[in-house]
């Protein structure tokens, strides 16, 4: 197929605006799959993705369509919607020439609509606005069109008005893609240049590498080389997705597809890397994109300590398909053996922990998420520490630096006050405020990453009624007055509950945690003091009074079975508890201290 008949595009949207449904309709309308083969929301293949209605992994799909007598190949690359996965979006965008921007006909432009639209503009993509859900009684396509023009600055006059759910005007969308999205550029005769935008692991074939061929071509038997690792592989299969894997002979410049090359280690297929020919390869790699860096760290432990190896297995398997997940072994005196894991954000963390519990059936305990600090000691050494329990004695510490991010918030002028207030609460430092136009301001801040990972994004959304979008990038480290907040149960420090926190916030958080723990820890046979302490100084105290009455019932006629049953029941309940010193803690206690802010 000629390049001029290929269109590579993605769909971007705010969560719930109908991205996956439109993808399904496109697949259906192009006859890529028969209707009966389409189970709802095809592209979200992970159970968790379907259940939550979010997209996490990317799935490129090749579709064929005849328009005005010509056959076209349409390559659709799905994208995730949540800010945690912004990097995944940018990956898809780099493989495309155009993007369908879906906007809900009643909700209008939302935070992620904006954020994704700007990402697409940055990537020089042709954007096709599409207004979805016009079948809803609350649909206001004209207002939404005006919003798109005013807030984003895109012409929306001939945006297709569609209902992905009802299958209305789907063909208009396809025509727009064919007419408006530019054909891929690229030189078929030049050395191979293919961008890796994702990879998944297959037990039989090894890594399945998803690529966009920019120059040259690739076929079975080719010797290829990864630019970053310089490793060489023999291509064993090339093909595309329908969305099932379908092998083909060759992938040409401009095409999107996959290759396998008996790559046993997913780490060798770094997302963003360029593949070229092993001999006479391209001189320069494609401009990749920012490599992904974990920003949120948390300890993961098994409720049943004997399942450590299962947990290890689970993490390794998840890592095969998710290079952004990092983990190293960790030992906690309270929780035993586990792993310190790095995530892209809180949602990523939630997704991973849920998958461990669901797909691998392991009950886990997750400790409070935190970031990685630079700790300078008085012996002139510097440690990077993400685990509060590994912090040296505060007497040995000269200074602590915490990671900060450069934050840009786009919002309506109406919400400037609300955003400023929120940022102040989060220790952010104001840098700049610009009116982009009369409908939009850009506010710039630097903010400690630790503050952002808690619930900043959710708070921002709720305080701006969704009319804010957020972009951030890592901006180095800054010295901060951080302290280690310890929680003592019955006089013993529980390392798994320790936190690193800014001194100004330590007091109120210590108190809040103690209060919260009092609610979640069941009464024990003795009084249990819960204390919060900074460097040995107690700053808050709560007491769980002792459990004194359990049961003293009559035993009739030598019938001990009732007593046995009661005991068995109580025994079951015990299994879910963790023994910390002499205190029994339910596993939710560790997570409950995270959710303080939401109450």
């Amino acid at each position, binding site marked *: 197929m000629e390049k001029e008949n290929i269109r590579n595009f993605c769909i971007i949207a705010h969560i719930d605006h109908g991205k996956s449904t439109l993808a399904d309709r496109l697949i259906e309308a192009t006859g890529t799959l028969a209707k009966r083969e389409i189970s709802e929301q095809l592209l979200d293949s992970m159970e968790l993705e379907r259940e939550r209605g979010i997209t996490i992994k990317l799935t490129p799909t090749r579709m064929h369509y005849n328009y005005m007598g010509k056959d076209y190949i349409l390559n659709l690359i799905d994208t995730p919607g949540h800010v945690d996965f912004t990097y995944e979006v940018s990956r898809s965008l780099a493989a495309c020439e155009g993007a369908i921007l879906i906007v809900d006909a009643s909700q209008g432009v939302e935070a992620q609509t904006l954020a994704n639209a700007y990402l697409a503009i940055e990537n020089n993509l042709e954007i096709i606005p599409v207004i979805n859900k016009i079948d809803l009684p609350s649909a206001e396509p004209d207002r939404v069109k005006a919003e798109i023009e005013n807030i984003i600055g895109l012409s929306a006059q001939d945006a297709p008005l569609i209902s992905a759910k009802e299958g209305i005007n789907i063909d208009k969308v396809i025509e727009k893609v064919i007419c408006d999205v530019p054909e891929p550029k690229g030189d078929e005769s030049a050395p191979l240049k293919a961008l890796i935008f994702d990879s998944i692991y297959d037990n039989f074939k090894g890594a399945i590498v998803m690529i966009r061929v920019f120059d040259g071509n690739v076929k079975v038997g080719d010797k290829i080389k990864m630019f970053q690792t310089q490793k060489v592989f023999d291509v064993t299969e090339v093909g595309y997705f329908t969305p099932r894997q379908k092998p083909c002979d060759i992938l040409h410049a401009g095409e999107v597809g996959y290759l396998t090359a008996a790559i046993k280690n997913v780490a060798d297929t770094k997302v963003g890397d360029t593949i070229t020919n092993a001999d006479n390869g391209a001189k320069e790699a494609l401009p990749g994109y920012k490599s992904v860096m974990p920003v949120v760290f948390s300890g993961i432990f098994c409720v049943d300590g004997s399942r450590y190896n299962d947990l290890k297995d689970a993490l390794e398997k998840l890592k095969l398909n998710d290079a952004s997940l990092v983990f190293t072994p960790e030992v906690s005196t309270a929780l035993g053996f586990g792993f310190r894991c790095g995530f892209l954000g809180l949602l990523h963390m939630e997704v991973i922990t849920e998958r461990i519990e669901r797909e691998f059936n392991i009950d886990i305990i997750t400790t409070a998420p935190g970031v990685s600090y630079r700790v300078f000691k008085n012996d002139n050494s510097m440690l990077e520490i993400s685990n509060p329990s590994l912090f040296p004695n505060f007497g040995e510490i000269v200074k602590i630096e915490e990671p900060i991010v450069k934050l840009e918030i786009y919002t309506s002028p109406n919400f400037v006050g609300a955003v400023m207030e929120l940022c102040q609460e989060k220790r952010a430092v104001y840098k700049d405020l610009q009116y982009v136009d009369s409908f939009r301001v850009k506010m710039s801040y630097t903010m400690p990453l630790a503050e952002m990972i808690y619930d900043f994004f959710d708070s921002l959304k709720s305080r701006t009624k969704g009319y804010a979008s957020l972009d951030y990038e890592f901006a180095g480290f800054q010295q901060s007055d951080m302290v280690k907040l310890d929680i003592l149960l019955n006089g013993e420090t529980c390392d798994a509950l320790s936190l690193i926190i800014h001194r100004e916030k330590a007091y109120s958080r210590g108190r809040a945690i103690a209060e919260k723990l009092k609610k979640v820890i069941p009464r024990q046979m003795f009084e249990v003091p819960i204390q919060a302490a900074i460097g040995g100084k107690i700053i808050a105290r709560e007491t769980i009074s002792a459990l004194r009455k359990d049961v003293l019932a009559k035993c009739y006629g*030598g*019938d001990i079975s009732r007593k046995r049953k009661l005991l068995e029941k109580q025994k079951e309940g015990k299994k879910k508890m963790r023994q910390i010193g002499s205190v029994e803690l339910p596993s939710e206690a560790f997570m409950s201290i995270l959710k303080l802010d939401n109450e």
Partner: protein
Amino acid sequence: MNDSQMIYVHIPFCKKRCDYCAFVSCTNFQIVEKYFCFLKNEIQSCKYNTKPISSIYFGGGTPSVVDEKYICETLSLIKSKFKIMQNCEISIECNPESTTLSKLKAFYKAGFNRISFGVQSLNEKELLKIGRNQNAVQVKNAMKNALKVGFENLSVDLLLGLEGQTCKSLEKQIEQLNMWGATHLSLYMLMIEENTKLFKNVQNGLYLPLEDEICVQLYDLLFKKLKELGFYRYEVSNFAKNGFICKHNLGYWQMKPYLGFGVSAHSFIDGKRIANPDNFMDYFNGKYNIEKCNQQSLNEEYIMLGLRTIFGVEENFIKNTKQLNLLLQKGIVIKSNSKIRVADDYFGVLNQIILKLI
């Protein structure tokens, strides 16, 4: 230690079911005759009659509501069928209002030597709210008559946690019972069992049992009071004056073998727990259920039951030594010689302790 065994006989008849009761009982007195016929049959056909009998207990229901001849005949059958030890303790549960002088005389003559009165409370108001019609005068008379007839060992059941109960009233009740000749007291907590009238009443807000914390405070105070009066706790819920520990009760907790006769009665024979059916139809058809226990759970039972008593359990039966040491450190359990027992203050959370040790 287990060269003797005990006998329990269940008399499942009651004039009226109490609101809190979740046990097998029957208010239809037309089947009394038939019931005792089957009961005697069961006793007669029992194969386990080689070991001598150290205690016999007639419980219910209310054994005192049926004609005394049934009770006396049954006891005499047992005496003829089994070898009864010289100092055998023979108890019968009685309801004060149905316990007449003539009945007491008959019981004494038949060989009963201990009476357990189901009193629950001396306060009429407290009793009415749980569906019991009885007053302090009836209790006083019944106890007086029992002493008159010759009984020396009188036990009284009391319930703790009743709506309206106060420490003062309870202390006074115990003083009175002591004065009237009680030698043994069982102090049970009111349990709100599903499928009882009381359960519904509690759910509908018509009955307000005392809160746990208040029950505990009452218990602590009563514990002191009882000690003053010479009642010592020998088991979680049971208090006795010197020499009046209930052998039968203690036997349950020390895993003594026992034979249970009658509907819903349980037996513990040859390390096996056996239960009779809890409905009359099956009982009259002679169907008995057998529950088998493996050795591990017998070990668990030994701990679970033994810890209920102040005599405790042998330390080497407790496998979870780490937990044991922790509990010893905290003074929750106490070690003397090679025995482990629960400290007085912690009997209320016995189950929690047991769970840690099994």
